[in-house]
């Protein structure tokens, strides 16, 4: 019976001209967005890979150099773009992509593309995620809103119920029919994405990409089930098709357009972030209290000097067998790192709290769960951004420590700022090689959203088992 109901729903949907045209338009848009998203991904990927390569070349060809001058010269690293960017670019254009790494300072990521775009960009970009998140659910609403009205007005519903069709089976049949229509579109995207990903084997190596793709498909499938179940149940409960449509559209607008903005705005008000000037001033003030690698006369530097002199049993830095300046620079780094850890730690805590605030709203609005999980699975969310920032900072610290240690123990003497190491030595230093987090890590950050979307699915299934779904109610 279930299969017959599903077949019948498909047949009706196909016969309705407006619906089939909408299907074709949305299917076409999905294909177009996926292809153009793929091209866009390739362009961005190449741009950043080339930029990273250029920086590495410059680093390796900096000539014979004093290690500390090299620390000041520094380098830039670029946030690599996830291959699933073509499905959901997430925060990519709103977040900085390049990070300057140098001695004495921890910088933030800079140059977000959105800052060079007009407010047209705030209307949204045409990408697969937008269509899957916004348009496909709308299509399901259009399919489902009068799914009972047709049979009510033609008398077929009464006939079906009289022939012994259980009301719940009818509901399930219609839900599965609407859901399967969404799954068909999803399958289209999945196949196309798989083919595109396979065309770049070097980027889709390993199981993580495929797991994420599978995760995204499962997530959207689950969300479409929620939409289908909700839409069909509402259509069954509300007799007037116009009212049923209006109710569904109101829910859609509220959940996809209004609530995400309201929640984001409230999160921002709950935990306002410091302005960059204030943030830097605070770090600068604390930094000033520490030792200054370039000022051996300050009190902390003097104390450190006494400690080193005592360790080596000499009374003047010039008598040390090593270059004291290198040690002082590194000590300066250790102090600076503690300051950066504190302030960037506080900033990241605030950012995470904002993210948690929006995560909790998933229990009210399943769209929020979908959006956050989609960003996370596409490796394009705030957590991944912070993960990159941390990895780059760890690399900076190792790099600067290596340079300072070379200065200290590489054979030069205190005060010998003209001492240089050959260019080849810089080439031997390991390049920054960012490993994006695995899917399990990403999902761990989004436990609330996972629980919320599962709870929503459970709730809608429970509603289907409620005793009020009787034949009289459907008629």
């Amino acid at each position, binding site marked *: 019976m279930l299969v017959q109901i599903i077949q019948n729903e498909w047949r009706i949907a196909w016969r309705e001209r407006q619906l089939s045209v909408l299907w074709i338009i949305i299917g076409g848009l999905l294909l177009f967005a996926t292809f153009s998203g793929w091209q866009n991904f390739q362009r961005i990927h190449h741009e950043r890979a080339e930029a990273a390569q250029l920086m590495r070349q410059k680093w390796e060809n900096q000539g014979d150099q004093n290690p500390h001058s090299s620390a000041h010269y520094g380098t830039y690293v670029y946030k690599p773009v996830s291959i699933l960017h073509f499905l959901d670019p997430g925060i990519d254009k709103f977040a900085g992509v390049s990070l300057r790494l140098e001695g004495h300072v921890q910088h933030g990521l800079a140059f977000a593309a*959105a800052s060079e775009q007009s407010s047209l960009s705030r209307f*949204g970009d045409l990408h697969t995620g937008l269509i899957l998140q916004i348009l496909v659910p709308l299509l399901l609403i259009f399919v489902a809103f009068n799914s009972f009205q047709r049979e009510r007005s033609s008398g077929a519903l009464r006939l079906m119920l009289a022939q012994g069709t259980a009301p719940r089976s009818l509901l399930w049949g219609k839900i599965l029919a609407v859901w399967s229509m969404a799954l068909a579109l999803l399958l289209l995207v999945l196949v196309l994405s798989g083919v595109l990903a396979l065309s770049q084997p070097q980027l889709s190596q390993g199981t993580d990409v495929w797991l994420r793709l599978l995760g995204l498909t499962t997530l959207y499938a689950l969300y479409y089930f929620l939409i289908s179940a909700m839409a069909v149940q509402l259509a069954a409960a509300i007799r007037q098709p116009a009212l049923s449509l209006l109710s569904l559209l109101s829910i859609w607008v509220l959940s996809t357009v209004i609530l995400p903005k309201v929640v*984001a705005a409230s999160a921002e008000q709950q935990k306002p972030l410091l302005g960059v000037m204030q943030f830097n001033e605070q770090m600068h003030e604390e930094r000033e209290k520490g030792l200054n690698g370039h000022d051996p006369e300050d009190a902390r530097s003097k104390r450190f000097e006494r400690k080193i002199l005592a360790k080596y049993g000499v009374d003047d830095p010039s008598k040390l067998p090593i270059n004291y300046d290198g040690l002082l620079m590194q000590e300066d780094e250790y102090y600076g790192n503690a300051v950066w850890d504190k302030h960037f730690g506080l900033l990241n805590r605030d950012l995470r709290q904002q993210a948690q605030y929006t995560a909790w709203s998933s229990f009210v609005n399943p769209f929020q769960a979908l959006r956050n999980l989609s960003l996370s699975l596409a490796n394009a969310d705030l957590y991944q951004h912070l993960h990159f920032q941390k990895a780059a900072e760890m690399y900076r610290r190792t790099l600067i420590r290596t340079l300072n240690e070379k200065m200290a123990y590489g054979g030069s003497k205190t005060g010998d700022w003209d001492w240089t190491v050959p260019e080849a030595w810089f080439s031997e230093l390991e390049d920054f090689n960012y490993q994006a987090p695995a899917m399990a890590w990403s999902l761990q950050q989004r436990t609330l959203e996972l629980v919320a979307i599962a709870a929503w699915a459970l709730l809608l299934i429970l509603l289907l088992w409620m005793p009020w779904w009787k034949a009289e109610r459907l008629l």
Partner: protein
Amino acid sequence: MITTILQYELKQLLRKRVGWALLLFILLGGGYAIAYGWLNYQHYRTQIDEVQQKQAETYAELAPKYDTLTQLGDQAPERLNSFGDPIMADFRYRRYSTWLPSSLSALAVGQRDQQTPYQRIQLYRNVNLPELEEINNPEQLLAGNFDLSFVLVYLLPLLVIVLGFNALSQDREEGILSLLKVQGLTPKQLLFTRVGLQFGLLWGLSILICSIGFGVVGADWAHWPAWVLGCGAWLILWAGLVAWVNIWGRSSAFNATVLAGFWIVLLILLPALINFWVDRTYPVLPRSEFMATARDISSQEWDRPVAAILADFQKTRPDLYAKLPQPIRDTQAIKVFMYNENSMAKVEQLGAPLMRTGAQRLGLENRLKYLNPAYAFNAILTTSAGTELSNFIDWQNATKETLKQNRELVTQIGLAGKTFKKAEFERLPTFKAPPLKAQVGGNLLCLGVLAGLLWLLVWWSAQRNAAEV
């Protein structure tokens, strides 16, 4: 007859619970948007105030020192010597160019939240390489702002749809339409009167909300007519769509589906497609090469022999070269100024395409606005609030000009081998904000033309479908 319909419809609207619910919805939404925008603006304003205070503080701290330097001349204490050095004078006097959109930006955040609103005015600064980048939560930026412009651009059309989707179809479905026809009332009259009344009510409501918003945030009322007219034109466009769909003579559910489709197309699909077009035509240029090259230009330039720097300087800045006291004696002392001029000229040349791309993108978006009325309406709101990219570019250009003036002054004094006294210190340029360029006329015309064309289509369809209607 029309007065009777109006009175009846008004009574009906007041009796309908859905009408009151909508009123509450828009008032709550508008109120929340105004409050959110105001708090957001206060937070932003505090940051700008801190920057401006810092500038005032350094001025207050430095001015007496330059008084002393001027009064005592060579007798000035040794500790003040470095204050006379042009580079140190420029460095110590912390001046900022600040992008300060008006308080109206509380109602239309636009691109304000994406930009760092201040830049240091200093010898070595380049407008394309800001010293600081504003701290933001990118997920919040992705979600967007719930400001009044969002309410007007996105939610207002929804109200038009909800009130008007069944303007004619409901009566037909309930069998009242034929009764009305008997009483000599044409469906066309009924439809236009209803849509007109709904338009009038919603425009009145939007005027009320805008006025409350302007009052609360203390905005310049000179922009109020632009907002009100913009809302009017936007509503006329949507009322036209509602009327047009009703004329087709289909069911209420069908009308609602089609109007929801129009909403999606005009507010999501078309802007996204045009954004896609603009992105493909003028992609945002990556800054990686620019940053790397800018950094290397500085170090390479510095490593060159002084004679080569001097020769280049003569070529690139003949005006400044002519002012050098002849014969040039201590080239080493003036190397830093020449080096700076040469490298800045090269860096600016490199940065020119970055600046150009923004303008090109805006140009294309502007040309495509007739396909994208939502953008035209949004641009009325954001440009009058001074929060659009075009306003930011104006600010960047003004900053560039101040940076140039600053460099000219410091370089001229440095090249002449002079030191800074009170007069020179006072001449150090501070930033003056460019006048606000609100792009209202063109965008209003665009909305007006589109609404006019649509209403012509409505009229023509009504004539053609007279029997059906």
